[in-house]
């Protein structure tokens, strides 16, 4: 019996619990990679075309911000690495940190871990099993990706570097998850902390990649390291030392902190709450406000930071580029129209729209989480009606995205406007650009509500819908998928503001669809059994 006893049994349990979730996530990641490779292969078949495309990227801050710089853009491998390094790193990071927190803090909070750990299980077994599962998953994903890259006959060295690099960034954030899980009693808070670290890492990289004066910022970010591996462009293997060191330090910190706390407790002590409820806590809406407020605050802060960063990066686009016809043409190939700066800002606003949609789904699914936890029955055994209860949360799914988009648009407009001495001009344009995303965002919330009312077992398909729309928008449009398919995504119908004058028809149509879906969900909720 040592501190690792039982790790293997726990690992088996975790694998059993994740047997659908993890393979699905890994498969999705591999599919995105596959569409990247095949898309580039088809669109840019000669070295000259690829090099022209890559030059277009290097002069486009939106692309630099999202994906980073291209290295050896004249090769297919160089383009694939450029496109997948940052975004792929974020996806692997998210999968890994959620995985580790789910099996450590999540299990402790639910009380299930107490039963398991009362068995013949060592003190470090739980965290070790979670980290081993993260390692297995990341290596599994790397194996898929490697097989795929080799299938397209990309150089073996770069293929190994890129696939292992994505796995390595996953492991760094598994370590972040291991630390975050020790800090508070709440898995929700731990996920928030770890995801914030991931977001900050992405922003650091984005700032480093868009700024001529501070490119070293990227080196502070594990997400940036994937790009700095220079896969297919020299393969700097020594960058893996940074991944290894960061993972080891974070995992070690996780073990240290874990040994210094009691089971179920966090390093940060739990605070006592008030002995009586404030006057505001007297209605379903008051309760929804209490439950949804932390998320609204967190997303607002996130949108302010992202907006300010987007605005700050926008300044770097020079007038010289705007004057170059060939670059403009290249830019249009990337999906841009008209003015380069406006196109960049419009792209950034559409990214804010996708993020806001994620928030909308999260807020709209909160009632479902409440029901699954068994907290709704006592509530509905009072005068609170089903629709009143749903409405409280729905207010956040509908108005919450409006708030965070307004914050994001304002932050972009203020920072960009201040930098270009055109505050009065930019703020309303960018506010409009952010808010025009709302009808599409509401569709996602409405889908979640419809599922909740009509097919409560399938509510997680709300996230599935978001993933599909993101794929259609990010991959489908870049690689020229059939327009009828792209039209499935509500974001396809959102005008690119600033730059294009929005027409009301598609927006009103989206709102009407959202209203119908919501009404269907609400009527389903009135009829169905609660908690059964």
């Amino acid at each position, binding site marked *: 019996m040592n501190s690792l006893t039982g790790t293997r049994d726990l690992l088996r349990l975790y694998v059993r619990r994740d047997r659908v979730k993890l393979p699905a996530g890994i498969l999705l990641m591999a599919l995105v990679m596959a569409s990247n490779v095949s898309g580039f292969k088809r669109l840019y078949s000669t070295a000259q075309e690829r090099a022209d495309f890559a030059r277009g990227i290097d002069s486009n801050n939106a692309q630099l911000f999202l994906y980073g710089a291209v290295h050896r853009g004249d090769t297919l491998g160089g383009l694939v690495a450029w496109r997948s390094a940052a975004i792929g790193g974020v996806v692997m990071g998210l999968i890994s940190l959620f995985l580790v927190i789910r099996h450590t803090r999540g299990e402790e909070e639910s009380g299930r871990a107490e039963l398991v750990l009362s068995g013949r299980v060592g003190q470090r077994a739980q965290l070790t099993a979670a980290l081993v599962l993260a390692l297995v998953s990341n290596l599994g994903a790397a194996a898929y990706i490697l097989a795929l890259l080799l299938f397209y006959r990309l150089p073996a060295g770069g293929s190994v570097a890129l696939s292992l690099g994505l796995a390595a960034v996953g492991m760094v954030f598994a370590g972040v998850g291991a630390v975050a899980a020790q800090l508070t*009693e709440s898995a*929700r808070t731990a996920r928030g902390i770890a995801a914030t670290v991931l977001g900050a890492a992405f922003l650091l990289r984005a700032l480093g990649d868009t700024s001529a004066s501070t490119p070293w910022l990227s080196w502070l970010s594990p997400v940036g390291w994937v790009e700095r591996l220079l896969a297919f462009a020299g393969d700097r293997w020594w960058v893996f030392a940074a991944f290894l060191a960061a993972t080891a330090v974070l995992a070690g910190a996780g073990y240290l902190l874990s040994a210094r706390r009691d089971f179920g407790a966090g390093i940060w002590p739990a605070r006592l*709450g008030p002995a009586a*409820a404030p006057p505001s806590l007297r209605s379903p809406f008051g*309760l929804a406000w209490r439950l949804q407020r*932390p998320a609204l605050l967190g997303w607002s802060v996130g949108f302010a930071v992202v907006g300010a960063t987007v605005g700050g990066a926008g300044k770097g686009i020079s007038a010289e580029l705007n004057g170059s016809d060939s670059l403009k043409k290249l830019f249009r190939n990337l999906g841009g129209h008209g003015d380069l700066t406006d196109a960049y800002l419009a792209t950034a606003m559409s990214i804010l729209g996708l993020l806001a949609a994620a928030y909308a789904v999260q807020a709209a699914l909160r009632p479902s989480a409440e029901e699954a936890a068994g907290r709704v*029955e006592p509530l509905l055994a009072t*005068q609170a009606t089903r629709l009143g209860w749903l409405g409280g949360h729905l207010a956040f799914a509908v108005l919450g995205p409006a708030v965070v988009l307004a914050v994001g648009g304002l932050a972009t407009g203020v920072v960009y406007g201040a930098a270009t001495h055109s505050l009065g001009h930019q703020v309303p344009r960018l506010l409009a650009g952010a808010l025009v995303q709302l009808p599409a965002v509401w569709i996602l919330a409405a889908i979640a509500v419809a599922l909740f009312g009509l097919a409560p077992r399938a509510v997680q398909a709300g996230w599935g819908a978001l993933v599909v729309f993101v794929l259609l928008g990010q991959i489908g449009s870049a690689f020229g998928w059939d327009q009828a398919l792209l039209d499935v995504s509500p974001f396809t119908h959102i005008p690119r503001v600033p730059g294009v004058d929005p027409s009301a028809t598609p927006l009103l149509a989206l709102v009407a669809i959202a209203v119908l879906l919501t009404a269907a969900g609400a009527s389903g909720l009135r009829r169905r059994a*609660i908690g059964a």
Partner: protein
Amino acid sequence: MTSAITASGLTKRFGPTVALGGLDLSVSTGEVHGFLGPNGAGKSTTIRILLGLLRADGGEASLLGGDPWQDAAALHARLAYVPGDVTLWPNLSGGEAIDLLGRLRGSLDPKRRDELIERFELDPRKKGRAYSKGNRQKVALVSAFASDVELLLLDEPTSGLDPLMESVFQSVVAEERDRGRTVLLSSHILAEVEALCHRVTIIRDGRTVETGTLDELRHLTRTSITAELDGAAGDLRGLPPVHDLKVDGDTVSFAVDNADLNEALACLTQLRVRSLVSRPPTLEEIFLRHYREDAGREGAGRDGGAGLDDSAVRNENSHRPDSPAIR
């Protein structure tokens, strides 16, 4: 006396599982009514139907004169519900949860609330995630008892309470009864039901198998007899059909249906009784008897059924981890 709850012929299916197969329940206004049944018998399903959280597939239910499904919100202003497995909002304190639920019911007596918090020895400042099962239960109980309502629906409300708190619970329910409130108490703790309830309903497999006052139920059932005979227990062939017959030297013990009591005593007196102890059945025995018949029926092919031997009792107990026999 008017009826607070009436249900007749309630049926409810969950896919292939029949949860309720024609359940009857009648609770008069002002009474504390015990609602008994083994795990999975359909107690919680019945209560959820009464709360309008589930819709019955068939049968009639009426609660405080209204339809539990149609008039849910209006009826809920007049009742309080305590579930058996209380989950609280992790980031709300216990005090906040008490106030919230009370305000949503439409009535909360702050003085009564503070008094109950003290009696139940609850720290209302702790966050929901920090409470143990028993303390979560106390939060729900305080909130329910501090609300000014006519009807309390309590679904195994004391399953996590210690004996001290159990006795506080019993005295609070007795107070509620004295104030004229109606209580439906689903419970596994038979001593609690025996102490508090005037009438009980016993259900099994989604059907009502017994309902009435405790006295009535006792009359319907058996008396336990232990007799010490003068000399070895001789010819017991004169005994009517009895249950759990045990002979140990000159001591004989059995349970006999009250209808056969006279005949059994006659047989014993012929064998010359030195001492005799007779005991009316406890609720536990009434309850177990229904279980035993259940087990006997299930095991009919195996041991010939009628449940005359102890193996049937053991068999039944093994289905019930919270058997009163272990208590």
